[in-house]
Each structure stands twice: as structure tokens, then as C-alpha cells.
């Protein structure tokens, strides 16, 4: 086999391998991410429902305690303690509501990752398409020309990907955000 044939064969093998291997990995990652998004959404739905139920029960309990206390002459320190507990529960509920908003952000981040993965898969697809045009008898000039075309395709896809994906979530913690009235 001439050296040019070997080169063509090797380049074809390389490009096909990169394309197929990368595509399989990315397909798995994409599937996992989509599944994670579904699981997170389900988890937050259940957490939210439980949270509301607990809060409702606590409110009823508080009303009951208040009714009991209004019937007799409870010690002032007991009344103060109950009021303090009620306030603490309110603060915990507010904190939980803030914390529970993680799903909104992770969902946006996951959606962005899926878009990036789709872009990567597109790039691997371009590599695979290029490799199919390489023949064993292709000479070095053919290969150089082909590689140049493939590189141009990849560059175009990279530019398109960068232009289409803007990061909307910059939060790195779950503290409440700024408020500005115009």
C-alpha cells in the first residue's frame, strides 16, 4: 500500500472513530441530563406539595393553640414562646421557599448544557461526513483539501454555537437576589 493510501485510510479511520465514539458518549450524556431534569422536576413537585401541606397543618395547629390559650389564663411566658415559635416557623418557611427555587435555575442550566451537547454532536457529525469523502487512493493534496473543508465546517459550527447560547443564569448560590424599582 502506497504511503498516500495509508495516510488516507488512517485519516478516514481517525475521523470516523472520533465521530462515532464522541457521538455515542454525547448521546448518553444528553439522555442522562434530560432524565435528571425530569427527576429534579418531579422531586421539586413532591417537595413543594409536602411543604404546603406541612405549612397548612402548622397553621391549623397554631389556630388551635391560640383557641386553647384564649379559654384560660396561660402564663405570659408561654404565650411569648408560642408567638416566637410562630415567627421562627415563618422565617423557616420563607427560607424554604427561597431554597426550593433551585429547580428553576438548574433546569435552565441543564437546558443550556443540552444545547451545547447538541452543538458538539453536530460538530462530530461534520467530522464524520468529512471522513466519508476520504478514499484510500486519495493523495495528500486531496486529504489536505478535505481537511481544510472539514475545518471550515467546524469553525462555522463553533461560531454558530457561541452566538446562539447566552448564559442567563449567573447565580452561584441560593441567597435571594437584588430588587430594583424603576
Amino acid at each position, binding site marked *: 500500500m502506497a504511503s498516500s493510501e495509508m495516510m488516507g485510510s488512517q485519516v478516514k479511520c481517525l475521523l470516523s472513530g472520533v465521530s462515532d465514539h464522541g457521538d455515542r458518549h454525547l448521546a448518553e450524556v444528553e439522555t442522562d441530563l434530560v432524565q435528571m431534569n425530569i427527576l429534579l422536576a418531579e422531586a421539586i413537585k413532591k417537595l*413543594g406539595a409536602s411543604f404546603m401541606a406541612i405549612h397548612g397543618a402548622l397553621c391549623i395547629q397554631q389556630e388551635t393553640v391560640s383557641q386553647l390559650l384564649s379559654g384560660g389564663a396561660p402564663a405570659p411566658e408561654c404565650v411569648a414562646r408560642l408567638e416566637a415559635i410562630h415567627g421562627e416557623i415563618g422565617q423557616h418557611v420563607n427560607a424554604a*421557599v*427561597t431554597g426550593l427555587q433551585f429547580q*428553576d435555575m438548574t433546569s435552565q442550566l441543564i437546558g443550556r448544557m443540552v444545547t451545547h451537547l447538541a452543538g458538539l454532536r453536530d460538530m462530530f457529525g461534520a467530522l464524520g461526513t468529512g471522513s466519508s469523502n476520504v478514499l484510500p487512493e486519495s493523495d495528500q493534496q486531496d486529504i489536505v483539501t478535505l481537511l481544510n473543508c472539514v475545518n471550515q465546517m467546524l469553525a462555522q459550527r463553533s461560531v454558530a454555537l457561541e452566538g446562539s447560547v447566552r448564559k442567563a443564569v449567573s447565580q452561584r448560590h441560593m441567597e435571594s437576589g437584588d430588587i*430594583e424599582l*424603576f
Partner: protein
Amino acid sequence: MAKTILAVDDSGSLRQMVAFSLKAAGYEVIEAVDGQDGLDKAKKQTVDLVLTDQNMPRMDGLSFIKALRGMTSYQRVPILMLTTESGDDMKAQGKAAGANGWLVKPFDPQRLTEVVKKVIG
């Protein structure tokens, strides 16, 4: 009579948290899943305040606000953005579109309620 707030967000959990917080403060809350759904619901009933996300399918928050401001009945209704977006350029676009305020997620229920009370009482 309780004042009504239209909460527009494509995240079901976020809408749930907004509705929970505002209903606890005595407001009625109508939920919409995106800007287009919000616009459809706004046409059926004029609300006292609109709280909307920015990044949503079908119609984003800025387009939604522009469409609302084009309706006679919504030219003076307060509109607040509640979004993960925190960049000054986006805030400027929101203000230009007709938003009256910008709240960055995640929100604290007490602070959200305070802002809503300040805006519509």
C-alpha cells in the same frame, strides 16, 4: 376585594412558590406558563399587577411586556420582572419595554410581598 396578580413563568415550581407567597399575603394569583399564555389571560381579565419571567418558550418576558403595553388596559398596570437575568443591559431593555421593576431570582417571599405591597398596596 383582593387585588389580582398575573404570575408568568415557564417553571411550574417557581409559579407555585410565587402563588404560595402572594396568596399568603392576601392576593389573588393567576398563573400563566409563558408570555403567550400570559397575554391570552391578560386579555380575558385586567389584573392589578403583572409579575413575569424573561426566558420562556413561545414568548419571552420582554416581548410579553411590549405586547401588554400596547393594550390600552395595560398601559398603567405595574409590571415587575422576576428573572435569573441580572445584567444591566437586560435591565435597561426591561425598563425600555415598560417594566416598573426588576427582581433577581431566587426571591425571598417576605421581600417579594413587601415590593408588591409597595407597588399596588
